[in-house]
């Protein structure tokens, strides 16, 4: 892999402002960036660091409500900050292409994939429709999409998320651009699917010697993809170095703190002897109205004061299990026991005391909190409903709950959810669950929408609350790093079945169930050689979906 050292993109002293609260505020505060032909630059930082904004600016594009206020962006000798709209438009899709975070949302639902692929080549009169379609099929094949001749003629909703993300990479390649901006292309994907996409992107970027800006918040991912890494914090550059240098020897404290994030670990608890489980799921089958079975004979126990992590890819039935336990979805077979007593399958038939035992914390704190209701009411309402508090007693209880989640009561009492940060909102979600004084809380992907540092804070809080209040958690996640840090026991689910369960230490030591093995080995590691080694081990045609499909359900190892 030889790379010509010719400068393709040079950004100098870039400043971008965003419009909020009726004034312009700086969101990018003077960032420099140099990218050579064929080079891959990783941009990392937490949300709000301005990664995506810089990515869009590299195309001369300012999102609605932002403006490029200062600095220069020079692409292959052309100054983009002063170029006319039509000059810039002529570059987009042609010489600079963009791959968005959510392919499912970024493909137009009304057009076939191949028509969206052909749009740019036809627009720039580079190809005839037939030629563009042949190109597309060739690229689909290179990206190892199934049925490359046929898949392009499907609509986006007929194709899975990982396949869509690869189809989008193909679309970005349609005019063989000089530069591609990848904006968190794998963040929304499961680990096993992520590998497919990463491998596909890397191959194609290598093959056409395309330069790329790879935006992500996941260090392990960027380590696989980038030649150099630039770390951003609140619109300013922290440091830039080659990938190896950056991983081995970060200079700035902020970078070191990012690297150290996954340090939180707590001791694993053992099941109490001869105790009745707090929650016992027994042989549960469930399906949504008229649909196929989503859960198939699911059984596991959760003991008082312990954390059971439920892991698996999206669609494996994790959240459905939670809906069965909370009574939102009565099972078609089997039952849920609470302290050995059967729990009525429908929440409407549960008593107030049964309802209070089981609370939920949601993934999207943003949408799980009513934006029109003040914090004191969000937390106060369950306290009032379950404990019948009112007046001064209620206020005291709300203050106490805010104290518990480490937010200063007087400051947050009268605020609305929109005035809080993502992590603070999630804390409010936790306080709302605690207000009912439960013994069992379902945490549904509670940290996956948060930055790593914030997520770590939430995990520490949940751990402290568990010790203080003797809570049991069912922790739904697809992130195995989170499992490592917080779980006592692990339940692995696939296609609505429990494929393996047991204490955490056992789960993380071989031999595993083949599916657990696949999940574990798919989690990116900080080693820049990780992806290469893994692909060599598995063989390029045996990643992601293909690998999942190869697991034989009758494998003798499954018996364990």
């Amino acid at each position, binding site marked *: 892999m030889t790379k010509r050292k010719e400068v393709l993109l040079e950004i100098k002293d870039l400043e971008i402002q965003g419009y909020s609260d009726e004034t312009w505020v700086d969101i990018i505060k003077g960032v420099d960036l140099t990218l050579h032909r064929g080079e891959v630059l990783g941009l990392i930082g937490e949300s709000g660091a301005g990664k995506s904004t810089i990515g*869009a600016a590299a*195309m001369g*594009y300012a*999102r*609605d409500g932002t403006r490029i206020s200062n600095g220069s962006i020079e692409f292959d000798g052309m100054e983009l900050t002063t170029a006319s709209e039509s000059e810039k*438009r*002529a*570059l*987009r*899709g*042609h010489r600079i*292409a*963009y791959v*968005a975070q*959510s392919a499912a*949302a*970024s*493909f*137009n*639902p*009304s*057009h076939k994939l191949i028509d969206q692929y052909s*749009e*740019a080549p036809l*627009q*720039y009169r580079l190809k005839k429709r037939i030629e563009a379609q042949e190109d597309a099929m060739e690229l689909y094949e290179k990206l190892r999409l199934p049925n490359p001749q046929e898949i392009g003629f*499907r*609509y986006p*909703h*007929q194709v899975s998320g990982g396949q869509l993300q690869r189809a989008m990479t193909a*679309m970005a390649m349609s005019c063989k651009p000089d530069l591609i901006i990848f904006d968190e292309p794998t963040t929304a994907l499961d680990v096993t699917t992520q590998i497919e996409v990463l491998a596909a992107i890397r191959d194609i970027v290598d093959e056409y010697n395309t330069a790329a800006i790879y935006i992500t918040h996941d260090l392990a991912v960027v380590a696989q993809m980038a030649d150099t890494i630039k770390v951003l914090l609140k619109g300013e550059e922290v440091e830039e170095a080659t990938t190896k240098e950056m991983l081995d020897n970060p200079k700035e404290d902020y970078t070191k703190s990012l690297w150290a994030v996954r340090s939180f670990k707590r001791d694993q608890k053992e099941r109490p002897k001869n105790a009745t489980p707090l929650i016992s799921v027994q042989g549960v089958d469930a399906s949504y109205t008229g649909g196929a079975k989503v859960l198939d004979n699911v059984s596991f126990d959760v003991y008082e004061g312990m954390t059971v992590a439920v892991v698996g890819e999206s669609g494996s039935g994790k959240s459905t299990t939670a809906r069965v336990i909370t009574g939102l979805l009565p099972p078609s077979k089997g039952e849920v026991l609470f302290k050995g007593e059967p729990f009525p399958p429908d929440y409407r038939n549960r008593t107030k005391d049964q309802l209070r035992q089981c609370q939920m914390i949601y993934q999207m704190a943003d949408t799980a909190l009513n934006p029109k209701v003040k914090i004191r009411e969000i937390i106060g309402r369950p306290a009032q409903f379950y404990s019948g508090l009112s007046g001064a007693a209620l206020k005291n209880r709300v203050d106490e709950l805010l104290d518990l989640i480490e937010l200063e009561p007087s400051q947050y009492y009268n605020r609305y959810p929109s005035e809080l940060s993502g992590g603070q909102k999630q804390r409010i979600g936790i306080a709302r669950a605690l207000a009912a004084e439960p013994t069992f809380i379902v945490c549904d992907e509670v940290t996956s929408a948060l930055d790593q540092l914030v997520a770590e804070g939430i995990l520490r809080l949940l751990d402290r609350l568990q010790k203080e209040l003797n809570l049991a958690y069912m922790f739904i996640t697809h992130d195995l790093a989170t499992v490592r840090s917080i779980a006592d026991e692990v339940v692995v689910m696939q296609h609505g079945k429990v494929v393996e369960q047991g204490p955490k230490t056992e789960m993380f030591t071989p031999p595993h169930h083949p599916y657990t093995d696949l999940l574990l080995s798919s989690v990116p590691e900080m080693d820049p050689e990780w992806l290469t080694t893994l692909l060599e081990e598995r063989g390029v045609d045996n990643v992601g979906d293909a690998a999942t499909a190869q697991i034989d359900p009758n494998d003798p190892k499954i018996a364990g």
Partner: protein
Amino acid sequence: MGDILGLIGKRLGLGVFILFVISIIIFFMVELLPGDIAQAVLGQGATEENLAALRKQMGLDQPALVRYGEWLAGAVTLDFGSSIVTGERVTTVIGERFMNTLFLAAYAAVIAVPVAIILGVIVALLRNSIFDRVANVVTLSFISSPEFFLGYILILFFAVKWQMFPAISSLSEGMSLGELLIRTFLPALTLVLVVMAHMMRMTRAAIINLLASPYIEMAKLKGAPPWKVIVKHALPNAWAPIINVVALNLAYLITGVVLVEVVFVYPGIGQALVDAVSKRDFPIVQACCLIFAATFILLNLAADVGAILTNPRLRHPK
């Protein structure tokens, strides 16, 4: 496609049921009206014997439920009985007038729907420009002025001052289509102006609503020019709300045109309804109400089917 046919069948069944409920409401509402029909027909001077004879002849001496049953049985075969004023069959009285109303509605719709949608796309493209604001204010003023007022203004200019179109839409047998279109131009134009604003603004709103979607940003970042972003990427996903508003306005073109018909002396069903109400000609009132209800139900069904056909998720299931 089988699913869609099934769905249409289900909705049609539901529509028939709603029509049945409406027929009950219409029949018994008319029953509740004060006054004696026989008395109204024969006038104050009628003797008791004459009144009784007429009631017997009209079946008014039967209990209401029996009469409803007979009326419904007739309505199912499109036989709504006879006018109690003229004795003519209801179908002959309103049949031709209903066709006239349909003609006028179709005339107005053929102009209004494409123009409104195209204008809506243009104002979405040029949003917040002078053109957008002018189009908004103009169409809004048309929708906010009463129809008869609009009609008279149009007559003043097009018929009286410039003498381009006739002020009265008198129809006669054997007119050529061109002649017919000219004679009915002013009422059609009045209707066009009344229904345009609603459809145009919904098209604009539905498109602008989608402009924040990631796939619109993607289209821009693929270098698509603004008109293409709107027409090719936003519009195909905006059809559902637009179709619903179009259907509502089409229904209005059929059921809400009384005033326009009066202004232009157009022999449509609205006039027939007003005449019948003032003369207590109940069979005609009932038939008109049932026709209006059926119109609404059918057009809403069409809108639902249209919304499904424009949604790729429903058209191409996994």
